[in-house]
């Protein structure tokens, strides 16, 4: 059972929850950029939390179903259609062999997720199906590819996400920051510059990192001895600008870090366009742990 790729789109990647346990050999975590939309897509289909999905960035993608399937599309509104008819997001839809699935207009958000009942069965590299282009692990979809999946249609269709969970990807975003790493080494004035401004997402923004533009933090310490990077670390470059390190980031880095963005806020960031305003506020680690634990429990993440 599979989909045939008619148009690959700007950037369409098979991703799962991520690649773990091998960071000491330099392998990035990789995995989906927006864990919120991804987890809902699998959850609606009663899939395993780690089942692989298709992450479609900016659209331009068209697939043809070669067999019947139950699917859910979540995340960005990229004008998802079946056979040229608009379809709802955030709910289970049954498709039939021969149907054409397309994402052709960027209405809201950046990344759409296509999950299929049973998950996509792309090749596993080092315990994960996630593609990481920076590491040359796997490759993006190209025209003519076939992406296969395991299950046939599910009988429990029409599962939909309750509408109060629906995210708004158009709003400016406040990212909650945990005081980690070198937080204490930034002085009061530097922290004021950081927390009291609205940064702008620059065009240096991909799955590896997101560079922000704004008023620079003066006299930031330059390079330091490289150390392990966690997902969401906020490096301050020598010029004083923040870079938020994301899923495909290298495992080590040598800029001082003012803190780490709470993981669930990185899901919000993943749907923001270049030019969106971003600000930061401090968050307590115990609260972050509680919220993430509740998220993990809801989506049965082990």
């Amino acid at each position, binding site marked *: 059972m599979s989909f045939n790729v008619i148009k690959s789109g700007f950037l369409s990647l098979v991703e799962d929850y991520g690649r*773990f*346990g*091998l*960071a*000491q*050999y*330099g*392998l990035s*975590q990789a995995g989906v950029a927006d864990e919120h939309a991804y987890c809902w897509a699998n959850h609606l289909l009663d899939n395993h939390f780690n089942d692989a999905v298709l992450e479609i960035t900016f659209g331009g993608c068209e697939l043809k179903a070669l067999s019947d399937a139950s699917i859910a599309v979540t995340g960005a509104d990229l004008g998802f259609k079946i056979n040229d008819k608009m379809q709802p997001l955030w709910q289970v839809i049954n498709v039939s062999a021969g149907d054409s699935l397309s994402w052709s207009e960027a209405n809201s958000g950046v990344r759409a997720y296509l999950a299929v009942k049973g998950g996509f069965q792309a090749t596993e*590299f*080092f315990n994960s199906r996630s593609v990481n282009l*920076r*590491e*040359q*692990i796997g490759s993006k979809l190209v025209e003519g590819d076939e992406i296969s999946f395991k299950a046939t249609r599910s009988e429990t269709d029409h599962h939909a996400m309750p509408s109060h969970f629906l995210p708004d990807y158009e709003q400016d975003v406040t990212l909650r920051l*945990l*005081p*980690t*790493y070198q937080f204490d080494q930034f002085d009061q004035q530097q922290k004021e510059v950081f927390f009291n401004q609205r940064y702008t997402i620059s065009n240096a923004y991909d799955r590896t990192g997101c560079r922000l533009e704004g008023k620079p933090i003066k006299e930031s310490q330059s390079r330091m*001895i*490289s*150390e*392990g*990077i*966690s*997902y*969401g*670390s906020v490096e301050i470059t020598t010029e004083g600008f923040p870079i938020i390190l994301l899923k495909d980031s*290298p*495992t*080590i*880095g040598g800029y001082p870090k003012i803190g*780490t963005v*709470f*993981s669930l806020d990185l899901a919000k960031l993943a749907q923001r366009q270049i030019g969106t305003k971003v600000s930061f506020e401090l968050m307590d*680690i*115990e609260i*972050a*742990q509680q919220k*993430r*634990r509740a998220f*993990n*429990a809801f989506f049965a*993440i*082990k």
Partner: protein
Amino acid sequence: MFNIKSASENSIIIYFGDQMSPDLIEKISFYCQLLTDKLADVIIDIVPSYTSLLISYKLNLINNEDVCDRIEKYLLSHDIDTVESRSKLIEIPVYYDCDVGLDLEELLSEKQLSLEEFIAIHSSKEYLVYTIGFSPAFAFLGEVDERIRKNRLPSPRIEIPAGSVGIADNQTAVYPINSSGGWNIIGRSPLDFSLDNPDNLKHFSVGDSIRFLPIDKDEYLALGGIA
């Protein structure tokens, strides 16, 4: 002794010192193995690097305070001499020549060394793996003899061929795959370090020792090297 800080909602970083040294990396390598074993039930990833260890853990099973307590207990109750090290010695053949060493000629003239002298200096030393990163299986090796140190290029090259051996300040490394990079390239190894062979991922571990074996062009070609 050591100092633990948060690194995210489910990770902590342990600092063991503030300067890279062979003694410190031996200690970190030892503690990396120890904590990997002792925290096996809750650990997700561990990243050793120069002066620190980053550990991410399963939030569902343990909280920040308890993981720190356990780590402190293990670090305080295990002395580095009590367990045998699992570190290994790895030999890497290298063809040192201007054909493949894109920056060798400039380095020789700047350092006023003959090719033979340069090869002797670079290959006579046993290096330690201080960290792995930048890309998978890219091992940062130290320390390079002061007579052949050189800073990174002012701007990185777009593509450095796989197997290239480079120097950046006091460190040396082999590029496992074709990639961009700013190190001074002094030669090339004919061995395949790419992840096309998945076993290559674990070729190097922090704390391992590395020795470069100079080979001539015939040996380089015989071992599969590309001139």
